[in-house]
């Protein structure tokens, strides 16, 4: 909590302990919540566990590839797997996702080939998947800009009379952006079918939450006129339940919801970042006890819903996935130089055609030169 909060901040809830929707404790105990529940078969729980492990493995492999110079940079999702898998598995096919650049877990849920994500960070494209094919929009790097795209898309859903919702991901830092606040306003006055999914991972690169807000983020929603709720972002059951309900409400005309998934960025902001410069190691140790994967594993164990063979099979699958991803990453060809001019416009553009022609001739002038 912000110890420097101005006098009177308590009146706005700054000091009150925020309620947190939790269905699975860090120890793997299933707990009840008056408003939210999930009814999952053992198979479904095992499937969530598998998702969590596999996306963490993709992330690990990508970090390693960056360290070996194969990726320019990578934004790790370490610690945020439950928030992403829980919300991602709450989606229906017709819902549309607007991610930041860290939603590798949600991309997994939408069947976006992870090699596409690696291609972006390797620099062979700026994204390159078809958003309509996966109902998963392109990664957006400018903080918060995609929130407006999601609301516009949701306004389109309204006009189409479709039963679908948009969900947009952003972080705690993004809540300071004008675009995010504008998107809240647009969503509210239009009663747009959109879910704002904020992963509060406590850090905007080096800036802690108290540099962004003097009240818990989920309470921002009330000022805009729609509900906000805080969920344990490391609890995949709770994230699934809360997101599922918010999406259902949106699809049925209930308007927007802000979900604050309270989680922790266990890694660096990106591979270029050094968190030892701004946060203490004990903080990470404390959050490791709340690991999003360990608690599902404990739950499966305790309730005898999975045996050792299952866990080993998932590990093996993860290793194979990592290996395959590594191989395909190394095989990614650099684009043709003339691809610079591709996909800028739909219709021909005289200037680009002229530049392409000149550059092609320039490149050709080197042919045959030793």
């Amino acid at each position, binding site marked *: 909590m912000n110890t420097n909060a101005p006098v009177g901040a308590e009146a706005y809830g700054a000091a009150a302990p925020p309620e947190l929707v939790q269905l699975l404790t860090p120890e793997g105990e299933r707990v009840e919540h008056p408003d939210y529940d999930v009814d999952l078969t053992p198979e479904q729980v095992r499937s969530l566990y598998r998702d969590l492990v596999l996306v963490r493995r993709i992330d690990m492999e990508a970090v390693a590839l960056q360290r070996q110079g194969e990726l320019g940079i990578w934004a790790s999702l370490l610690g945020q797997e439950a928030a992403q898998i829980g919300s991602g598995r709450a989606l229906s096919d017709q819902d549309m996702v607007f991610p930041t650049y860290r939603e590798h877990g949600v991309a997994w849920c939408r069947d976006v080939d992870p090699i596409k994500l690696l291609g972006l960070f390797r620099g062979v494209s*700026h994204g390159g998947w078809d958003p309509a094919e996966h109902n998963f929009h392109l990664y957006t790097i400018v903080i918060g800009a995609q929130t407006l795209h999601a609301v516009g898309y949701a306004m389109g859903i309204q006009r189409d009379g479709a039963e679908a919702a948009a969900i947009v991901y952003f972080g705690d830092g993004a809540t300071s952006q004008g675009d995010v606040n504008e998107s809240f306003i647009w969503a509210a006055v239009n009663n747009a079918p959109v879910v704002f999914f904020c992963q509060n991972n406590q850090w905007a690169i080096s800036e802690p939450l108290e540099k962004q807000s003097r009240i818990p983020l989920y309470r921002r929603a009330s000022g805009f006129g729609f509900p906000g709720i805080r969920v344990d972002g490391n609890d995949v059951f709770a994230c699934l339940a809360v997101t599922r309900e918010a999406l259902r409400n949106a699809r049925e005309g209930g308007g927007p919801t802000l979900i604050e998934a309270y989680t922790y960025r266990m890694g660096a902001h990106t591979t270029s970042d050094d968190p030892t410069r701004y946060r203490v190691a004990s903080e990470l140790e404390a959050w490791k006890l709340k690991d999003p994967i360990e608690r599902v594993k404990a739950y499966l164990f305790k309730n005898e819903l999975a045996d050792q063979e299952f866990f080993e099979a998932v590990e093996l699958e993860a290793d194979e996935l990592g290996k395959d991803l590594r191989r395909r990453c190394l095989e990614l060809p650099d684009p043709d130089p003339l691809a610079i001019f*591709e996909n800028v416009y739909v219709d021909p553009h005289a200037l680009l055609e002229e530049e392409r022609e000149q550059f092609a001739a320039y490149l050709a002038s080197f042919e045959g030169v030793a």
Partner: protein
Amino acid sequence: MTAMTTGPAGTAGGAASATQNGTANGTANGTAKGTAKGTAMGTAQGTANGTAQAARAGRTAGGRDGGTTTLTLVRAINEGLRRSMEEDPKVLVMGEDVGKLGGVFRVTDGLQKDFGEDRVIDTPLAESGIIGTAIGLALRGYRPVCEIQFDGFVFPAADQIISQLAKMRMRSLGAVRLPVVVRIPFGGGIGAVEHHSESPEVHFTHTGGLRVVACSNPADAYHMIRQAIRCDDPVIFFEPKRRYWDKAPVDLDAEPDLPLGKGRVVRPGTDVTLLAYGPMVRTCLEAAVAAEEDGRSLEVIDLRSLSPLDIDLVAESVQRTGRCVVVHEAPVFCGYGAELAARVTERCFYHLEAPVLRVGGFATPYPPSRLEDHYLPDLDRVLDAVDRTFAY
């Protein structure tokens, strides 16, 4: 951001009410400025009168002759929007005050009444939100036409236009198309307060992924807005606000005679090529008329499209005339004229009798309106540049 009510909104309203009262000369414009040097609107031509008449004609849609109607530029865009909305149910109009009010310049007048609030959307007052949500609507298959109320208010939307709208197609390797039109009334000469008179076109011509056009007259305005809406690329559509009340015959049923990306020789000549777009086209035409009396034949090209640039048209002309003067309201330094001068030099080096000269705004912020007549290129400054090209 909002229009200062004492500013151009007042000016627009003032002009209209002056018309209704039949006091053509008493435009808010003239009163607000009241300076000696002939108001910018009345550049050497008594256009205060013309403006008022145009406003009246525009409101009542003049006399029809088959598909041909005399329209103000405002009304021409309005008709173009209306036609586009009739043709394609995916076309939406959105912006601040575009609904019930019909826009501060009345460009969208009556559209909400006829097409409903779902298609003509009065948005919250935030420019980034307008463009950002338009992108989302386009991703869902709509064709939004956004109004930015005034040139100087486009900057809060700069990220959404420059970093999102322009780049999303490349980001998707061609999977995404964003047929979004951003209409921006631009330029000075209406006696407005700060931020209501700017010419920000090069910010957008400098951004790959955008098409940038500027209309100069009612007929082009009608056809170009329809072409911009049909275009599958994002189009920044500049409207010459001080020419909003110019009127001319427009054939509403005709097909456009030029593609969106092409320029037009609007007055043939033999001695100097004047290059202009938007509000400066008329200024250049007036200069050409005046120059004729001095025995000089000026060719005037209305570029119409700034990105792409119709360089072939320009080069062909300059190779004939051997002299070239570029005219725009935006600052000369790093302005669109700099690009034109460089390209004309590359294409016409051996034909040039003089360097390409540029006439435009100074390297300053746009001045207070009592000074704008000194800042804006007018007939005399254009002719002065023409004289200088003959001094080499």
